[in-house]
């Protein structure tokens, strides 16, 4: 039996990665050619979720924070990119604000990529502003504050009617997102996260996750790294939001509620926090599960079945295998206390 590990470690990782990516795009091309629009939609959605989940992984998995605001950042990205790309003709029809002069003027509509990036940047800026005061404090504060931020953003989305059309939302968004966009974004996200994690930044983040006080003693300033993780996470969440908006073609404030955050959190946790592959695994499995169960849900008239199962899976994971499907056991109980 050949020693697989030995062979594996000799193979140039980059070559391997490149081959896998190539294989991926080959499969996508085949899928696009052969499968139904519905399935292709789901596949694209998976790509978008990977962007969201992998970026949340940076904050939650690697730095040990517990941000619940991801949906808020996605909302920012979604609305920003939509408002930028919306075709000029449609703006009159759908009562959407025209772009101010410094963004191109009333006759302008941005192309997809810059709009996406703008969405991400805006989300990152908000993250930085909120993160600065909140990340100094104990982790729980971040959880509730980020949750609150998401609620605030949703409230804004509902009330700034001139900008966002309120709870009606925006429809007929040009569906620029396709499998290619989704998966190129996914690959880039995974790559960026991988680079960060394997750099000195990543080591610092992991040190903070393990033991913040010890990390401080080693001269690591926790705030700086937490802020970095939070902001970069938000950037990609913004991008994911923009991709989502241009995939489904419609966005409403309600779509970016706690439910969405929770879904992404679950995908990261069940897949495996703190590993690169984890979120991908989580996204794929849970998305497929959702769309497999959907017809059942409708047939039985049981709405919320999917969320129930998601929650159950989360509980089981936390109680049985907290490091997730792809995760390794991290650290250990500090002191063997007899409870």
């Amino acid at each position, binding site marked *: 039996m050949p020693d697989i590990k030995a062979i594996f470690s000799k193979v140039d990782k980059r070559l391997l990665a490149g081959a896998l990516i190539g294989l991926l795009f080959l499969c996508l091309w085949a899928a696009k050619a052969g499968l139904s629009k519905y399935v292709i939609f789901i596949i694209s959605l998976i790509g978008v979720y990977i962007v969201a989940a992998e970026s949340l992984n940076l904050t939650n998995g690697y730095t040990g924070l517990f941000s619940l605001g991801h949906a808020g950042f996605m909302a920012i990205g979604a609305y920003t990119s939509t408002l930028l790309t919306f075709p000029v003709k449609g703006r009159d029809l759908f009562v959407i604000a025209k772009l101010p002069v410094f963004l191109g003027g009333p006759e302008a509509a941005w192309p997809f990529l810059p709009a996406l990036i703008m969405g991400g940047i805006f989300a990152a800026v908000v993250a930085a502003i909120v993160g600065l005061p909140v990340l100094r404090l104990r982790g729980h504060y971040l959880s509730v504050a980020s949750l609150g931020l998401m609620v605030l953003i949703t409230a804004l989305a509902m009330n700034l009617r001139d900008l966002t059309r309120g709870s009606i939302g925006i429809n007929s968004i040009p569906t620029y997102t396709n499998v290619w966009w989704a998966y190129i974004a996914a690959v880039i996200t995974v790559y960026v996260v991988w680079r960060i994690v394997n750099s000195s930044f990543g080591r610092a983040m992991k040190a903070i996750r393990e033991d*913040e006080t010890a990390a401080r003693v080693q001269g690591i300033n926790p705030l700086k790294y937490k802020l970095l993780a939070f902001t970069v996470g938000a950037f990609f969440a913004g991008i994911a939001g923009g991709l989502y908006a241009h995939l489904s073609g419609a966005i409403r404030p309600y779509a970016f509620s706690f439910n969405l955050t929770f879904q992404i959190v679950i995908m990261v946790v069940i897949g495996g926090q703190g590993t690169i592959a984890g979120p991908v695994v989580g996204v794929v499995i849970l998305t497929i599960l959702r769309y497999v169960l959907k017809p059942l849900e409708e047939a039985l008239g049981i709405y919320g079945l999917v969320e129930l199962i998601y929650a159950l899976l989360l509980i089981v994971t936390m109680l049985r295998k907290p490091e997730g499907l792809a995760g390794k056991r991290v650290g250990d109980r500090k002191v063997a206390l007899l409870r």
Partner: protein
Amino acid sequence: MISSEYLIQQIFNGIVFGAMYALLALGMTVIYGILRLIHFAHGALITVGAFSFYLFFMVLGLPFPAAIVLIIALGALMGLVLDVVAYKKAVGGPEVAMLITSLGFYIFIENLMKLIVSPQPYAFHTPEFLDRIYSMPVLTFRTIDIFIVATSVGIMVFFTLFVKRTKMGVAMRATAESGEAARMVGINISRVISISFIIASAIAAITGFMWGAKYGQISYNMGFMAGVKAFVAIVIGGVGSIPGAMLGGFMLGILEMFSVAFLPPGYAAYRDGIVFFILILILIVKPSGILGQKEVE
């Protein structure tokens, strides 16, 4: 422009809501003090309490006092179950793990309720004597308002006495300060934690009833915002302080009422958002809250 009657009415409303927030905050802070955990699932107990009352009182037709006693018992039981199933294993591990588990349990219970009772809100009826309206020159209120404030204050007084005068109460305060030292004097921490859950959950259940009675309707997700706002109340009043939690609750109620009252109409939907804006403001300015001490990182 704003009449003094309007002001007084709003302050009164704020006190009523504040009383409910204070009760929730109380339960949450007890658990947070001992376990350093934001018990997300706490909110679910409100939902369970409200719907159980609906079941006992409206569906089964049990007399009011019996229904109340039953939901308190049910709440206590659920708290114990949560303690045993959810948290016993997670204690001693990473804090984040407990947060996630807590969240998972909340979502599970919420969606289970959604399944059982349907996504539509239910109309909540209370016994007739709680619905009587009293119109005074300065203030208008219903009996339920008095009930809520009186019960809340009663519970808070009772709890404060419990925590100061009884052996278990003092043990709880000691455990909140240092679990290790508590064990060294012979306190069984497991039992203290279980009792904390039981008390907090029973309080949450009856608060669920009050919530439903005040709003007139209940839905499967009513507990979520209530639970999170309870945490905001704790932060306002000072984490780790029991009087702080109660103070924070009342203040939150009044602040929320004020902002709703004084905002131009149409902005009322910002209500929840404002609560969180206040939270972020406090975290920036004085994270330890009004009565709290600086938390050790």
